[in-house]
């Protein structure tokens, strides 16, 4: 599969959890400015589109209770078509379209959020990943004879959701199966963006890149350096990566990392000490 023939599809999943971003913005040491981050992301997206004429793009927002396509915009009947006349003369049309669509939809999404009781501090990561992969599948079928090389870039600042563990892992395995690389850009600070467990595993399993950004001011440099090359070039380039992925198991009762432990044969939960009954699934450990 030469690089000339295949189409590159970049799927960007933006974590738009307002509470996480707001908390990060209030951070004393290194505040995150959502606007700045998005600007740099848009420049990166433009760069991706500029690389080749047939590069594809999809942008998905992972909100607290829904996942939404930011680009390509989904026009409902009531919306007016985008205003073509407002385009400045010396702007490339495709860039302009993308920028406008993303900004507009994102603004609508965040400002329409209702009262704080409905909004939780979480982000629908698994849903967005599924959405991205189904879109990738659709584009792959639409271009059927031409091979498609796809990758997903996740910008994340929210903590991991334990209830979404199974769903997230399933998405990761599906991506691994298809060959879609998942890259993660995680914003890390003193009071936000704690270490995630799913995301480094996602990168490791699919062959993607996991980067922790200490300062969001210079996000563009990181994006252009590490995340711009398409999958074909990745095999030739050597990119900076996190060495160790933490695969260690933690016991279910104390949440401490264990090296040697006991495993329930029914629900596969790990414990550090023997007991007559599994606390998770209540199977009796009988025996001689």
């Amino acid at each position, binding site marked *: 599969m030469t690089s000339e023939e295949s189409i590159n599809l970049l799927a960007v999943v933006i974590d738009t959890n307002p*509470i996480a971003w707001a908390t990060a913005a209030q951070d004393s040491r290194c505040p995150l400015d*959502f606007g700045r981050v998005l600007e740099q992301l848009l420049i990166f997206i433009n760069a991706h589109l500029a690389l080749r004429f047939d590069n594809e793009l999809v942008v998905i927002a992972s909100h607290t209770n829904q996942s939404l396509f930011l680009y390509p915009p989904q026009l409902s009947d009531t919306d007016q078509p985008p205003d073509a006349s407002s385009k400045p003369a010396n702007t490339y049309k495709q860039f302009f379209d993308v920028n406008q669509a993303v900004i507009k939809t*994102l603004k609508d999404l965040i400002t329409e959020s209702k009262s*704080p009781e409905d909004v939780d501090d979480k982000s629908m990561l698994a849903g967005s990943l599924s959405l991205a992969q189904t879109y990738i599948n659709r584009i792959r079928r639409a271009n059927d004879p031409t091979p498609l090389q796809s990758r997903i870039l996740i910008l994340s600042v929210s903590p991991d959701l334990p209830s979404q563990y199974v769903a997230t892992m399933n998405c990761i395995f599906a991506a691994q199966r298809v060959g879609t690389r998942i890259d993660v850009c995680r914003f890390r600070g*003193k009071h936000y963006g704690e270490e995630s*467990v799913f995301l480094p595993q996602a990168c490791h399993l699919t062959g993607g890149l996991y980067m922790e950004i200490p300062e969001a001011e*210079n996000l563009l440099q990181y994006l252009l350096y590490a995340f711009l090359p398409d999958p074909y070039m990745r095999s030739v380039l*050597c990119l900076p990566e996190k060495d160790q992925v933490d695969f260690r198991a933690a016991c279910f009762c104390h949440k401490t990392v264990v090296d040697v432990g006991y495993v329930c044969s029914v629900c596969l939960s790990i414990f550090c000490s023997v007991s007559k009954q599994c606390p*998770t*699934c209540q199977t009796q450990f009988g025996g001689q």
Partner: protein
Amino acid sequence: MASPRFRCPVSYKKRNGQLSLGAHEFDWTLDGAEQPELRIPYSAVKAQAQNKSEKVILKVSLWAQNGQPEVNHNFTFLSTNAAKDRQKVIETLAYHISQRSGTGSGPPSASGTPQHPGAGVPKGGTLSAEERQIRLAILQDNKELGELFKTLVLSNLISEEDFWATRQHLMTYQKWQKNQKKGVLGTIADVRPTDSDGSDMKFKITDDVIASILAQFPPVRKAYEANVPNKMTKETFMRKYLESKFYQRNRGPGSSGSDAFFAQYEEEEDDDYAVHPKRAKYESSHLLLDLAAQTEDHLETGNRPDTTMRAGGVRSSLPLIRQFNRVSEGVLKANIKPSSTQTKEPTADEVYLRSTELDDLRPAEGPIAKALEIADATKYFQSQVGLSTSTPVERQQLNASQLLRTFSKAVQNWEPILSKTAVSRASGDSILQQLNTLTKKRKRDYQRNRALSSTVAKDAMALHAAAKELLHNYWSAITEKDTEKLTRIVTVLQDILDKARNFDKDSRDGPNNVSKSAAFKAMQDSVERAIRLHKKRRVEDRHRFLSI
């Protein structure tokens, strides 16, 4: 000469002549010539070989002399008892070859290095030709062993006896393999014409091919057994076979062959109502008894199957009827579209099962899956998350609604002008530096994991093998009183030790500076120990010598 010379008609280089065996040489004379054209002393003969086909050929190879390549002579035996003649010549030559190798000296060393390491001459005792051949075969098969042999034995570091003393198992295995009788080749031979030019096709048929053809087609086998070798030769038979449908069938449709010859062997006795049918088809339904049958059902027939309607009563019309049936079956099949659900013949098990199993009696099966009752689902998955050993983030307790409000206001007021977006140069550069260092580290890790290049690895392995062999010999010779031998071994060991130490300097493998001599550490330790022990003994001996 006490006994008359043995003579036999032999053709050499396509000319007929006589081969005669003398006391010290054998020669070949062209028919009608006075002097022998070819005179070969027994001492010059290195080996002989015979072929297995119809022609009785003996190949005699001579030692390579004075830089010339090895000379081979091929003799074809022509007499009626060609095989016996050849056997006699072989025995004589073999006797002389073994005689010569047992007592005489080896080939002149000026002949240059032989192609494979020739089995050297043992110091004492004779070595039968067979054993020599075995050793030669082992060395040829196992390239590494051959190399080791060359470096160690041919440079007289270790005597050949010692070398083979530890490798008895190899010799027994090889001997066993040689003597193993191999059966007929079992592959199904695909007969194809060689050099087919137009209508004239040549086929190469060996015994193996014939055997496989006979195994494939029983009628052909019957015909073969009946005809060959009495009524027709193998060749004629094979010709008939190739013209027949058996061969033509494989080649593809449309080519009909003459089947008359094989037809007579093909027909089977087909009598459907014979008392003991030849191939009794197993009808599973026969074993099922109809328990509801009454006496009245059995009045006419008893227990026999109904035989009032016997088809094929007139034997002579059977082939015609069969042909008719076959054709009509074909016509029907071609015209009726086969149903999508192909009804297969039910197997015997299925037939019995259907008759004997009653649905009412089958126990109700419970559901297979058991629901996993996890008491507290969130706790179950929570252990996967929150593993961070790093300092946990201190969530500042801020007012959620206030946060939300400020955030959405900020987003609403955000009007990006992308052309004005800038990244500060200095911080951008510093990030670039960081990423570059990370990348360099990654690249170094890649290269470190790369395997050593093949030549370097080979050299290292060869060195290691030599050291192992020498150590083996040293420790087994330690009980002997042959100090000279031990000293010799130790000097070579020292040499190897130095080579191992300098291994790095000789072969630089790019920026991969992982010290290769570290790989030899274990070997170095053992070599050093042997050397140390030897030195200590030398000192002790000297003391003992002096104190006497």
